[in-house]
């Protein structure tokens, strides 16, 4: 149980009202090869209008940690500890509500209503046998007790909001009659339908082509400005993150290794993993024909985590003897900038070169 010091600093773009605060979130699954620790002590705060990006490789626990917030995981093999306090108007009388302490039955009233989800693949996240109108209105009728008429009216509004032309006519169409990008717009509309405080976009643009990706991220950005919800954007694509995130949390092996506001993270990464990750980004127009930088090795499996720092077997620096034996704490190295390492990557590290080149040379792209 990590009692991480949590100095939560409001960030530009957010108006400072906290809507969600997650503490000591731990998720593990019972497997044949022992307990798999998928999320290990996650803390984060989310403010109104803020976009938090969680980045990490496959299996770093980024999706699971957000699914765990409303217990959308199979619970007998899985186990969720910690707290996720949702604050907002009329929630628990100003005290907020700990989602993880709620029963399954009570939670259904929060899913979709207060925490909306947008999943990765728009091709499969809509039910093929129902019209999109029906799928859009379902949540509203259930959570907001709207009449069929009102729900349909609002559905048309939502579809217009997410930029679907001819919204009123398209309400009775089936998902297969939409293109991938249009479907993802519908999925976003469903996620927004009950006006949730928090919208979780789980790889929401990964399955889309680059042009559509840009449209969708832009759309979510403008909707966020309009509606003021907080967005958690889960992705492995740093390019997507750079464009939209206020704050970035980098996850590795189930824990946050570095967290900072977006500009700081890109300009001044301190954790060896973040540095490696940023160094591996290609720079347009430079280094053609050269190999991309990469981090050797693979992330550890959740059943056999290495002792000490989870990253140390792949780390080229290992500048502290404690790396192999002791789990590093999340240290505050600047305002709102936290790093889980005993040391910081020195300024003259060769890996920092490409990162610097990116920040100074690659301005404006992404």
């Amino acid at each position, binding site marked *: 149980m990590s009692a991480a010091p949590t100095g939560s600093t409001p960030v530009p773009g957010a108006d400072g009202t906290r809507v969600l605060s997650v503490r000591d979130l731990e998720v593990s699954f019972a497997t044949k090869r022992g307990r798999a620790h998928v999320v290990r002590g996650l803390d984060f705060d989310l403010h109104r209008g803020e976009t938090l990006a969680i980045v990490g490789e496959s299996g770093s626990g980024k999706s699971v940690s957000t699914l765990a917030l409303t217990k959308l995981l199979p619970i007998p093999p899985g186990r969720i500890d910690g707290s996720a306090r949702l604050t907002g108007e009329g929630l628990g009388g100003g005290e907020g509500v700990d989602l993880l302490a709620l029963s399954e039955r009570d939670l259904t*009233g929060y899913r979709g209503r207060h925490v909306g989800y947008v999943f990765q693949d728009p091709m*499969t996240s809509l039910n093929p046998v129902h019209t999109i109108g029906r*799928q859009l209105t379902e949540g509203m009728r259930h959570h907001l007790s709207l009449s069929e008429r009102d729900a349909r009216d609002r559905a048309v509004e939502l579809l217009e909001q997410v930029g679907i032309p001819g919204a009123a006519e398209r309400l*009775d169409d089936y998902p297969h*009659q939409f293109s991938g990008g249009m479907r993802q717009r519908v999925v976003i509309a469903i996620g927004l339908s009950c006006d949730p405080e928090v919208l979780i976009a789980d790889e929401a643009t990964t399955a889309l082509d680059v042009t559509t990706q840009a449209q969708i991220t832009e759309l979510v950005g403008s909707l966020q400005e309009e509606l003021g919800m907080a967005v958690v954007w889960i992705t492995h694509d740093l390019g997507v993150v750079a464009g939209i995130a206020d704050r970035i949390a980098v996850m590795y092996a189930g824990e946050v290794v570095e967290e900072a506001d977006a500009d700081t993270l890109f300009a001044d990464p301190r954790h060896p993993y973040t540095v490696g990750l940023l160094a591996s980004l290609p720079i347009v127009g430079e280094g053609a024909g050269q190999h991309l930088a990469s981090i050797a090795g693979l992330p550890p499996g959740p059943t056999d985590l290495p002792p000490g720092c989870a990253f140390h077997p792949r780390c080229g620096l290992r500048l502290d003897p404690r790396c192999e034996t002791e789990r590093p704490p999340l240290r505050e190295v600047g305002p709102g900038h936290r790093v889980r390492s005993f040391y910081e990557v020195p300024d003259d590290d060769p890996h920092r070169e490409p990162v610097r080149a990116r920040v100074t040379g690659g301005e404006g792209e992404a």
Partner: protein
Amino acid sequence: MSTADTTLEGPSGDATPRWRQTLSLLAKNRLASAGAVVLIVLVLAAVFGPSLVPYGVNEQDIASRLNGPSGAHWFGTDDLGRDVFSRVLLGARVSLQVGVIAVGISLVAGTAIGLAAGYRGGWLDAVLMRLMDVLFSFPVILLAIAIVAVLEPSLFTLQLAIAVVFTPIHARVVRGSVLSVREDVHIQAVRALGASDLRIVAKHVLPNVAAPVIVQASLSLAFAILTEAALSYLGIGVQPPRAAWGADLQASQGFLASGSWWMAVFPGLAILVTVMAFNLLGDGLRDVLDPKQRSVIESRGVT
């Protein structure tokens, strides 16, 4: 289905309700329509049979027994001088009734079992499906005979026996579909939208497994009618002198050698036509009920 289709309401023909679009699409499929027409005729025969038949089912005309088809007796007469046409017509009643009730019971039971087993999984799935396996492992006729033998032979027992025999088939079809649908992202998505398990099963899983269930049901109707005929043939189904195709077929056996082919051919033909009609309709329904397949048919109509 290379029919050059006539006009069809455009892709945005949303003024017509869903079920009418489905019907009109089904009507475009000639084989399925043929099946449907035959079934409608059969249902009418079953309902209005008693007032349509030229002779009573058990009205004997000993003088003209074993006569071939003629103007007076379209399908000829049997060994007791009864009109075969009247008996075949009224036999539809028994066959359809037994088929519909038996399949109805097995459909409800099988779907409920399949949904519960498939959605819940775990021990419930194991227990229910092993139970279904036990039922399934018996040969159909043997199990039905056993059930009829234990209970007392009556029309109700017959229906119950056939229902028990067909329940595992439906349960398996449903469970199999549920297992794959359950893992779909859109199920996860409605869960994330706050839907309860009951709601997910009823509103999201069931409609997704409905197409195979409906197709299976229409095929089961065909098999249920066959089973009923077989059991009646074996003498443990509908009891003579009541008119039933299977029983009549059995009665005709002794007279085939002497050339009275009509006694066997017409009840047999009735079984064949009915079973085929259900199968054709089932195939047509499958095409029309699948939304993806459906748009293929729709687009074929447009171009």
